[in-house]
């Protein structure tokens, strides 16, 4: 800068230049050198592409700016591949949260060094000095009740000390080695969610766990982001349109997902599609950001969406199916849904029937292979039953080529209704009131069975009358019987006229556009205990209108970044499928339910969920009993599996000269061996070591937070207010131990870059590199690209990427394993798997318990598969760092498509280099994270056209329809890490997914199914509205039905303070996704805190606030049986009376005072929640209702919860 005389300057300031003609302005000629001030600020040295690895559907490409070696700021990349000239682009993608990320890099919240709680480190050092061997040292601490209680009781209470990486890694590795040796590898677990948000970082630890035999916890179902309705209806985990396909919708209902807030980068497609003539309808209890874009706002009360949807279904069935036949809808349904399939009726007391199971080819006397897995329809022209292609039985039969949706000249009859048809009365469930609905359906007798069609049942359930059918039917829309528009009005609060109008417009739009009507749905309608019935009532709307498998139509469920587009390569690396199969995948919800002892407080009785037409299958059983039943029937995984170390089981078998599986069955039969989940609090059955990375279970997703603190961690001041179940209400089959264990875990490790609650309560905290300091891959369902993380700067201080951290842990583990473990055999109990022949294990959906003598225990049929694998423990690190031989020995199989990537192996060996020496000699290297990324991309069809074609060819043989051309145009393409670092790359159409994306076409799910007659992965091969498993029928959920939220006030009674001095109200407690964070990430970021109110808020209606004497920004206290939370109030009129809202993932580490009620530190939003499991989510071994990791399993729902609210003292204590 030039220096000038201040005196001269002062003179210049007031100098006047030539005045303009009008005398009102003047021109001043002077230098503008000072303008370099802001130019210098803007200048930077380097721009690096990265993204944010947070569980969010964003997966946005960002430019990270580096200046003088510092990360300064970030802005969105705008160079996505084009969508073509006639639609908006994917640019920019990003949100305020992502934009604030670089704040973390140098913030005081950053974890810069490894930390261990002082007491534990001291114990470990002392024990090591005494014992010399780290594993022995660890044993001496955890097996000593006094010593272990000392450090466990200090969890969360500060007192961290710095330690070196080698020392901490030794401690962590010792805990793993000891626990595996003493209790078994299935007592070691890891939690890391959402691989798509950073695939290699996810894989770093799961690959380690897979090699040692540890337990990998699922997250999608635990988060309650999994919509069970998707596997139930589609046989698919979740498959949804990319956001660009919203543009193609002519009618969009946004139902339970606040697109601008939770799909921030993509909301513009919705805003813009309105200009293309799209109508937008929003259903939400609060007037939120998305409501702003609606043409109509339907303010349905929380949790009542199913009532509105069934009423809309009533209107559509009446106007578009009964009063008038829409050919497009009927033809779609006949071909792609189960509506024409025949269902048997079971006689019930009182002369009526109840819907039972699908009629099968076996009922027709067929002896062909898997006849009991082939469903039946009537041919419209001949009236004769026939077996349409495409059922599960066709999929897995020896003869290939019949697994397709070709009708071969037949035409399925949708309804049996005709003049003079036979009729029968059926009882149908209702849950809005006591009793059942008795209505007539047209029937036919086929063989010994009385049958009707799914459509006929649906019309009866939805109350749409037709001439000649007996029973009670609504007289019209204004007759308040299920499911009329008038009926839903008092339940939802939505005007009946509006409900009719929207239903009619939705269907009419679909009729005119051949299915371009869409429903965007999300957590607001999915996080409920009865999420599946809500969603199935939505799916009924899109299926009745022929919208699924159409661009611009169908369901658009967005909760969680669940879509790993390069799925096959990622699975191979993440679960070490290249070395050993199967991994110990575990459903998160039952694991946490048992590990945190939430089951000991269970008030929901399964039998109360059944309908009067059920058979009493749940009578006297606790939720944990049903879980145990599911485990022993092989339905869902249950790790730890047995009440004995699975390594020891293999040894015992060896000593007895028996096959380990045979030994296990024999021991089980003899009652000498039990399942761990039948005695979950026994010391030998509890999980011992848990590592959490890329997650904040305690501060974010840990539903039942206070139960975690009490039972899993053993902290001294948990906020649980509930008492345990009294005798008489306890499980029948699951053992009850008193007192309940506290502090089950011996070691909780967190790897993170910021100090969250999970880190605060951990024993060990390892410093992670941030998303701007490492290399990784990212994808999402919202956009069709794969793109990368890149390191803008090297990991600062002592931080490390997850990949490098687990490489270190694996190395130390292997070293310690030499002496303590060696090579062992391990018996893995694996559930019956979806997309494999296992799913034909238990025909007709009947439940037979070998323990009760109802069948024989046969592994893989009536109980879990028992697979014996070799664990070369000293070789774990070597295997972790190299691609193993099973890739070429067994190939890669995903969802039934398979390929043999031999060419790719050669290329990877050349690109990554090969390992020299040791157990992985000659194998392609995975030592560096870049190697892992290259392997993921090379082995997947979405990123490797050659494999996509090969996979489609394998499906072509199975299905007998042409498919390979779908990827053919890109057969020669390979997307490498470098390609994706240069620019986000559009993925290739692949059998890993169900949509066609070529020539600029937007991804919509199931377009392959609809356009190529490829079946869905369901029992019937079609999209199923009807589910005939015995437990589904027991709950009265064969068809979509409306079930209200769980009535926790009725179940648990008043949960107030018992102190009458101040007013309190019990409100529906709704926890939507935050505007200022992505789960718990960013909620402690100063920019985000500044942009709202500096911490967690409870949104309260003005009416409730007035009742409670609460003014805006007052401190309030929330409490129920589960815990207590303190925060401030945001009083608003955009929230209805009776509902309060707290953005979810309120962590407890910022400005959280002590509670008035208990004096403990106020908790998180999940201090008020406690999970329970829906029995039907446990079902397995039955077609699409078979286990898949993050595919089917009980969801950890939390939204039915209520809380008591009152104003608290404004004097705070911390």
């Amino acid at each position, binding site marked *: 800068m030039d220096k000038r005389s201040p005196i001269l300057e002062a003179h210049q300031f*007031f100098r006047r230049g030539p005045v303009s003609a009008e005398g009102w302005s003047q021109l001043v000629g002077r230098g503008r050198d000072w303008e370099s001030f802001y130019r210098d600020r803007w200048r930077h040295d380097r721009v690096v592409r990265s993204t944010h690895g947070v569980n969010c559907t964003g997966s946005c490409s960002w430019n990270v700016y580096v200046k003088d070696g510092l990360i300064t700021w970030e802005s969105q990349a705008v160079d996505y591949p084009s969508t073509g000239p006639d639609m908006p682009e994917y640019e920019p993608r990003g949100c305020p949260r992502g934009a604030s990320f670089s704040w973390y890099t140098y913030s005081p919240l950053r974890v810069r060094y490894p930390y261990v709680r002082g007491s534990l480190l001291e114990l470990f050092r002392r024990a090591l000095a005494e014992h010399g061997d780290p594993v022995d040292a660890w044993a001496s601490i955890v097996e000593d009740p006094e010593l272990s209680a000392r450090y466990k009781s200090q969890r969360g209470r500060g007192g961290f000390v710095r330690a070196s990486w080698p020392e901490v890694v030794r401690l962590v590795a010792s805990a793993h080695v000891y626990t595996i040796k003493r209790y078994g590898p299935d007592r070691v677990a890891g939690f890391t969610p959402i691989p798509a948000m950073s695939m290699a970082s996810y894989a770093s630890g799961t690959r380690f766990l897979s090699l040692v035999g540890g337990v990998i916890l699922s997250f999608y179902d635990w988060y309650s982001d999994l919509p069970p309705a998707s596997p139930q209806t589609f046989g698919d985990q979740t498959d949804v349109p990319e956001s660009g396909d919203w543009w193609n919708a002519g009618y969009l209902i946004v139902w339970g997902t606040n697109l601008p807030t939770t799909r921030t980068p993509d909301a513009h497609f919705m805003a813009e599609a309105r200009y293309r003539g799209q109508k937008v309808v929003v259903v939400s209890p609060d007037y939120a950001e998305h409501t702003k874009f609606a043409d109509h706002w339907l303010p349905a009360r929380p949790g009542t969406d199913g009532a509105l949807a069934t009423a809309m279904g009533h209107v559509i069935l009446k106007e578009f199916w009964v009063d008038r036949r829409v050919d497009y809808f009927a033809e779609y349904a006949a071909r792609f849904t189960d509506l024409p399939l025949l269902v048997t009726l079971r006689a019930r007391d009182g002369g009526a029937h109840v819907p039972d199971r699908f009629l099968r080819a076996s009922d027709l006397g067929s002896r062909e292979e898997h006849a009991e897995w082939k469903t039946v329809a009537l041919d419209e022209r001949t009236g004769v039953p026939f077996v349409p292609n495409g059922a599960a039985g066709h999929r897995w039969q020896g003869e290939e080529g019949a697994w397709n949706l070709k009708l071969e000249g037949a035409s399925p009859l949708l309804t049996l209704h005709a003049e003079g048809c036979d009729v029968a009365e059926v009882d149908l469930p209702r849950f809005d009131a006591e009793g059942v609905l008795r209505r007539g359906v047209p029937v036919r007798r086929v063989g010994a069975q009385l049958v009707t069609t799914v459509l006929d049942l649906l019309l009866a359930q939805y109350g749409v009358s037709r001439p000649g059918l007996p029973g009670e039917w609504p007289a019209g829309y204004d007759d308040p019987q299920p499911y009329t528009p008038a009926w839903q009005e008092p339940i939802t609060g939505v005007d009946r006229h509006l409900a009719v109008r929207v239903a009619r417009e939705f269907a009419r739009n679909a009729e005119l556009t051949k299915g371009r009507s869409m429903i965007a749905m999300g957590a607001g309608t999915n996080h409920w205990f009865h999420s599946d019935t809500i969603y199935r009532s939505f799916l009924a709307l899109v299926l009745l209108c022929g919208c699924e498998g159409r661009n611009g139509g169908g369901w658009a469920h967005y909760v969680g970044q669940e879509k790993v587009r390069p799925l096959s390569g990622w699975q191979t690396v993440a679960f070490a499928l290249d070395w050993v199969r199967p991994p110990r995948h575990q459903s998160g919800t039952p694991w946490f339910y048992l590990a945190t002892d939430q089951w000991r407080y269970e008030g929901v009785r399964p039998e109360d969920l059944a309908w009067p037409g059920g058979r009493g299958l749940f009578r006297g059983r606790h939720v944990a009993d049903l879980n145990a039943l599911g485990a022993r029937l092989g339905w869902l995984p249950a790790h730890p599996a047995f009440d004995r170390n699975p390594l020891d089981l293999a040894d015992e078998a060896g000593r007895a000269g028996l096959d380990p599986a045979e030994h296990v069955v024999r021991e089980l039969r003899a009652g000498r061996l039990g399942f761990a989940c039948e005695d979950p609090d026994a010391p030998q059955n509890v999980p011992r070591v848990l590592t959490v990375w890329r997650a904040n279970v305690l501060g974010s997703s840990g539903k039942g937070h206070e139960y975690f603190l009490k039972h899993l961690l053993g902290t001294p001041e948990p906020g649980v207010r509930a008492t345990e179940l009294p005798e008489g209400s306890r499980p029948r089959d699951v053992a009850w131990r008193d007192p309940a264990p506290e502090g089950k875990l011996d070691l909780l490790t967190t790897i993170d870059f910021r100090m969250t609650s999970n880190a605060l309560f951990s024993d060990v905290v390892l410093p992670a590199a941030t998303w701007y300091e490492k290399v990784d891959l990212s994808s999402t369902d919202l956009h069709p690209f794969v793109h990368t993380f890149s390191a803008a700067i090297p990991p600062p201080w002592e931080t490390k990427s997850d990949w490098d951290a687990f490489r270190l842990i694996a190395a130390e583990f292997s070293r310690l394993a030499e002496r303590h473990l060696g090579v062992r055999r391990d018996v893995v109990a694996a559930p019956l798997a979806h997309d494999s022949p296992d799913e034909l294990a238990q025909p007709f959906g009947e439940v037979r318990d070998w323990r009760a003598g109802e069948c024989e225990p046969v592994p893989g049929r009536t109980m879990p598969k028992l697979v014996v694998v070799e664990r070369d423990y000293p070789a774990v690190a070597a295997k972790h760092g190299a691609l193993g031989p099973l890739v070429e020995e067994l190939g890669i199989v995903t969802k039934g498509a398979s390929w043999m990537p031999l060419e790719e192996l050669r290329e990877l060996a050349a690109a990554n280099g090969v390992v020299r020496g040791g157990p992985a000699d000659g194998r392609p290297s995975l030592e560096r994270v870049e190697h892992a990324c290259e392997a993921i991309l090379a082995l997947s069809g979405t990123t490797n056209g050659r494999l996509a074609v090969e996979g489609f060819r394998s499906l072509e043989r199975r299905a007998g329809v042409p498919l390979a051309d779908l990827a053919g145009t890109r057969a020669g393409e390979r997307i490498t890490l470098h390609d994706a670092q240069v620019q986000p790359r559009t993925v290739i159409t692949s059998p890993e997914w169900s949509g066609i994306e070529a020539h600029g076409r937007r991804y919509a799910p199931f377009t392959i199914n609809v356009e190529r007659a490829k079946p869905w992965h369901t029992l019937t091969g079609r999209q199923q509205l009807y589910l005939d498993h015995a437990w589904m029928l027991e709950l009265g959920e064969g068809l979509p039905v409306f079930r209200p939220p769980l009535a926790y006030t009725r179940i648990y009674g008043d949960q107030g303070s018992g102190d009458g001095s101040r007013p309190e109200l019990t409100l529906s407690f709704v926890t939507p996704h935050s505007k200022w964070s992505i789960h718990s990430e960013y909620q402690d970021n100063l920019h985000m805190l500044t942009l709202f109110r500096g911490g967690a808020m409870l949104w309260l209606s003005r009416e409730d606030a007035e009742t409670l004497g609460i003014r805006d920004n007052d401190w309030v206290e929330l409490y129920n049986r589960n815990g207590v939370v303190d925060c401030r109030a945001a009083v608003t009129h955009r929230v209805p009376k009776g509902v309060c809202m707290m953005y979810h993932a309120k962590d407890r580490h910022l400005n959280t005072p002590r509670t008035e009620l208990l004096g403990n530190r106020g908790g998180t939003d999940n201090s008020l929640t406690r999970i329970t499991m829906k029995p039907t989510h446990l079902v397995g071994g039955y077609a699409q209702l078979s286990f898949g990791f993050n595919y089917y399993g009980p969801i950890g729902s939390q939204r039915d919860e209520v809380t008591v609210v009152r104003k608290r003292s404004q004097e705070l204590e911390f």
Partner: protein
Amino acid sequence: MRVRAQVAMVMNLDKCIGCHTCSVTCKQVWTNRPGTEYVWFNNVETKPGLGYPRRYEDQERWKGGWTLDRRGKLKLKAGGRGWKLLNVFWNPDLPTIDDYYEPWTYDYDTLISAPLSERDPVARPFSQLTGEPMTVRGGPNWDDNLAGAPEHAHADPLLRGIEDRVRMEYEQAFMFFLPRICEHCLNPSCVASCPSGAMYKRDEDGIVLVDQDRCRGWRFCVSGCPYKKVYFNHRTGKAEKCTLCYPRIEAGQPTICSETCVGRIRYLGLVLYDADRVEAAASVPDERDLLEAQMGVFLDPSDPEVQAQARRDGIPEDWLQAALRSPVYTLAVRYRLALPLHPEYRTLPMVWYVPPLSPVVNALETDGYEADPDDVFPAIDALRIPVEYLANLLSAGDADVIRAVLRRLAAMRAYMRKREVLGEVDESLPASVGLGAADLETMYRLLAIAKYDDRYVIPKAHAELGRRLMEQQGACGLDFAGGPGNCGAVEPRTGNEGFMLTALEHGGGLPADAAPPRVHDDLLRPLLDGRLAPEAGG
């Protein structure tokens, strides 16, 4: 006619999702430093609400912008030069820190460093100004999404005249978002308010800047701006404001707030205007005529006479080409979809807004049983946001102006729906709003498809007009003692080398002998002391 080019912006509020990404990226790039903690060159407000700083739109209180004197001449609402001299050491129109908010942070490090304690450690807020523990009572977006609206929103100045009709009740709820940056006005009252002559409007692109070398920290620009978009940096003692990202604009890149706008609501482009008509336009007696008056200042870039004069006035050829493609001109002038923010302030703002549509009032939609499913869009008159409310924001209270815009948007939607869903082209729809079908399709492409190159048409700066290039090419980037500086930070030049600056000083300015305020070591004092003055309390 004196042709000038202005880089101007349009924001389509109908597309704004209220995400605040613009605020964060702007903050990170420009005001993420001590002295500007509370400064948001770009902020987003929920409407109805009080805004940032609170109630800044109440010019009876803050005296920002211009008014007309008894003779109908423009004068600063806060008073002229004499008044300023009287109030030079205490400006009653200056917002205090509480009108903005007291910036805070947390003692985050306690989470890692806490010794073994009774219970889990917690990070608590403390002031970034005083370093003392504090209770958070305000923020730059305190009333986000109608938070606190039942208690506070009645004080929203935009409710003027409709207070009795708009109640903060669930059934009536409505809201929209208003992102704001500096308006880079044609008649900037901040520039005119500066006693030091430190502010200027750049001649070549109209960007309004505070010369950081010349600013003496009087802060009359802060109070003089009716949009409260000039801020006081309490570390440097100087005013700072949105620079329209001129380092990027000069390179042909959009502003940070624009490029990072994920709602894709922002447009940047040139508007040519007649500098000789500015004063008259700002001086029309009736506030409701200001919109048309400002329209009259703009020049048609396709008019050969305008082009000829522009060339004579030194506007480069590629700038004229850019003006022809300007999305701002198309939206604001050609299709009259965008409107100026508070034209009644008479500053002739250059950031314009497309008003938002909103859901229909449910009570007006109960004919569902008879609804024709092929006619899906509700009538404009039934929308939730009162047009009078929008009129108080964008058209000096003239509701018909708002209705006309909303009708054009609705006609475009209806026309496109017929085309896309029913496969019909209905020529009557464009005609009903005085446009042709091709016009609606142009609007549609610009508003909906909105490609990057159509949203941002920004000609690059012509460095050759103002610099000794051969010399600078070799020295660019060097900035050592006696060195030549950063591509232009050379010795002060004498004479006019092409950078003609237009400083607007109407009634502003102080006598040359007035002393600038003393710059205290603790520059916070003025901010914090101000809050103690009872008249200035928020």
